[in-house]
């Protein structure tokens, strides 16, 4: 499994006691035919922030609901603190959960919402009040105790939902697209709040989102999911710099996606023909001459009209579009048989302006060009 290989690659904590949550070959099918999740392996260390990232339908929410106990896996094992949780109902799993759209009880005040998990546990009134107070301080909502959720802004509701998931001091917190309903600015602010809270409380967080930027900002590790299976599990930097699947390269950040055919293989490198050009690439996927592969090159690593001799990979192309985006120029070029090869030219002195229609030399370092599994370009 690619996922578990990537786990080892990022150097997971070794001691067994460090593992908090463990999925072992978990699969889920709702109708007995199509698999919502399959072959899912993941080990989350205590205190770690792991995000399940993927487009809708990738199975990330299903995984979360299985962990929370709302659904049972069709096969496979889920362990929390080393013991199987198959038969534990949600209330016995000790998991704090932040729901999509918050699921705050509309008929209860903020205070009552927060006290709910404490009262059902039979805590004394005084202790309830104290814990509710400190949870409100944690999310900086002092003074809104008596409000109903309907009287709060989206961001405030979000904070209440997080406080409610934390107030009974679970060691594991699940968050299901918690920021999806917020506008961009609020979302950024809440991302920093969530980071701060995670640091302060040292809880384990399993987070679900389809927003790759959010995942990058928040997570220590990200599991990229697609159609119910893991594509790659790695830290944000590794996912961006060293994608191992072309889906991951496309999904995380901007990417130039070039389909080509392997001509020659040479250790860790390979020659690939794209369009009428031949380029050298890092050989990430197992391939033989004649195989189809997909090359991935980040736009900021593409140089336009560089000093001659700096780069091993050089191709010719034509500028089709130039957009000024402040800190950089976005240039779209026809090259290597595609019409949308993108380069980001930093806006620094002497960047050498280009005009639409110019014929240019396009170049990149061999190690910035990764030969990945073949995946036809989708448009």
């Amino acid at each position, binding site marked *: 499994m690619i996922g578990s290989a990537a786990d080892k690659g990022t150097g997971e904590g070794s001691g067994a006691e460090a593992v908090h949550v463990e999925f072992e070959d978990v699969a889920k099918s709702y109708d007995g035919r199509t698999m919502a999740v399959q072959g899912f392996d993941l080990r989350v260390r205590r205190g770690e922030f792991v995000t399940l990232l993927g487009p809708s339908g990738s199975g990330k929410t299903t995984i979360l609901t299985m962990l*929370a*106990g709302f659904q049972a896996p069709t096969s496979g094992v889920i362990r929390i603190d080393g013991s199987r949780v198959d038969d534990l*109902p949600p*209330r016995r799993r000790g998991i704090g*959960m932040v729901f999509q759209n918050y*699921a705050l009880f509309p008929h209860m005040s903020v205070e009552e919402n927060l006290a*709910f998990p404490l009262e*059902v*546990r039979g805590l004394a009134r005084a202790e309830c009040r104290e814990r509710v107070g400190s949870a409100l301080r944690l999310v900086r909502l002092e003074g809104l105790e008596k409000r109903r959720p309907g009287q709060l802004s989206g961001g405030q509701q979000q904070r209440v939902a997080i406080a409610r998931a934390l107030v009974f001091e679970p060691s594991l917190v699940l968050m299901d697209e918690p920021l999806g309903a917020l506008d961009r600015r609020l979302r950024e602010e809440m991302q920093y709040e969530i980071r701060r809270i995670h640091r302060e409380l040292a809880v384990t967080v399993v987070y679900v989102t389809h927003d790759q930027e959010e995942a990058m900002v928040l997570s220590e590790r990200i599991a990229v999911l697609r159609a119910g299976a893991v594509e790659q599990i790695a830290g944000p930097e590794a996912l961006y710099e060293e994608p191992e699947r072309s889906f991951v390269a496309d999904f995380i950040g901007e990417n130039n996606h070039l389909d080509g055919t392997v001509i020659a293989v040479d250790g860790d490198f390979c020659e690939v023909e794209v369009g009428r050009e031949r380029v050298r690439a890092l050989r990430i996927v197992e391939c033989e001459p004649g195989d189809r592969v997909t090359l991935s090159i980040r736009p900021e690593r593409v140089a336009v009209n560089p000093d001659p001799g700096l780069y091993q990979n050089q191709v010719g192309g034509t500028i089709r579009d130039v957009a000024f985006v402040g800190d950089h120029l976005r240039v779209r070029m026809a090259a290597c048989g595609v019409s949308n090869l993108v380069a980001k030219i930093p806006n620094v002195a002497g960047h050498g302006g280009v005009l639409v229609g110019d014929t240019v030399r396009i170049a990149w370092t061999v190690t910035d060009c990764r030969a990945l599994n073949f995946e036809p370009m989708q448009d």
Partner: protein
Amino acid sequence: MSHQSRERRRAVGLALPLLLFIVVTFVAPLAAMLVRSIHDPAVVDALPETISALEGWDGQGLPPEEAFAAMARELVDARADRSLGKVASALNRVQGGLRSVVSRSARSLEGVSEGPWREAMAGVHEAWSDPTTWHAVLAAGQRFTLRHYLGALDMRRLPDGSLARQPEDRRIYLPLLWRTLAVSASIAVICLVLGYPLAHLIAISPPGRANLLLALVLVPFWTSLLVRTTAWIVLLQRQGVVNDLLAAIGLVGEDGRLALIYNMTGTVVAMTHVLLPFMVLPLYSVMHGIPPQYMRAASSLGARPAQAFARVYWPLTLPGVGAGTLLVFILAIGYYITPALVGGSSGQLISNMVAYHMQTSLNWGLAAALGGIMLAGVLALYVLYDRLVGVERLGLG
């Protein structure tokens, strides 16, 4: 802005025919009936001079001679223009027996042309020498009166003007009113107990099955009331399906067959069946709007199923519970046809009494007063609900 107000005016304009329809067929008759409950001009219209003469009377002993004279003349006149029957009935409602007194007197007085009228009338009927007769005439001659409401509340006005309750054995309406309220309340509770789980089942079913279940709930709506009621008769009668079944499995003996119909049991069973959709639909519409996430949230926060229900689900369904209960209760209070058909004598409700006074005894004033009391009761309930829960939270779907 002006475009919006034009839109609104047009919408109001299109609703005008309905408004007119409601005013003509509902509001106006209702108002007329309510007026009738306090406005009873039959006696004063037929005996105007008698009444005005009696109004000068101090109430002690017998009224003055001119009252006798006016009464004698007006009775004869009323007989002549055939309005005597109405007067006689109106008087008879105030004091039993006056109908025959009046008819006999009118007939006998036709031949009498001269006073003294006091003696003449006493000769025709001894009731005229009794001051209570004249008090009754005066009471019946009030154009605006609360006596229908007093009657509907089993009260009466004594000759000295004070209020008193009817003797125990003559109290009819209050016990019937309480019985109606109690039966309606129990039907509402039974509907709630039966309908709540069903509404929940429909709310959590996938759309296809939910539609099928809803259709089944609505079947009583689509069936003629008479067919439904007849079906209950077939099922519940002494030789009916239910009793046959019970006898067949030995739960009751052949001679111990249960009386399930033509009594209160029949009324309650049939009305619960008829009114169940009015409970299920508002409940369903409220439950349908409760995201399943709330219950998930409750259980992930540590609540046992019973706690999650009591603290989260039940409070969220209260608008539906209130709407359904109120709806069923109000409809049950006014229910007429089902108790009339399957209630027998012990299963009658207040509306059957209203119908009796409308159709048989022709005491429309009393019928209107009974209706007015029911209307006031329902409105009071509505206000109470508004205070407790808030009408804007009524989930009527």
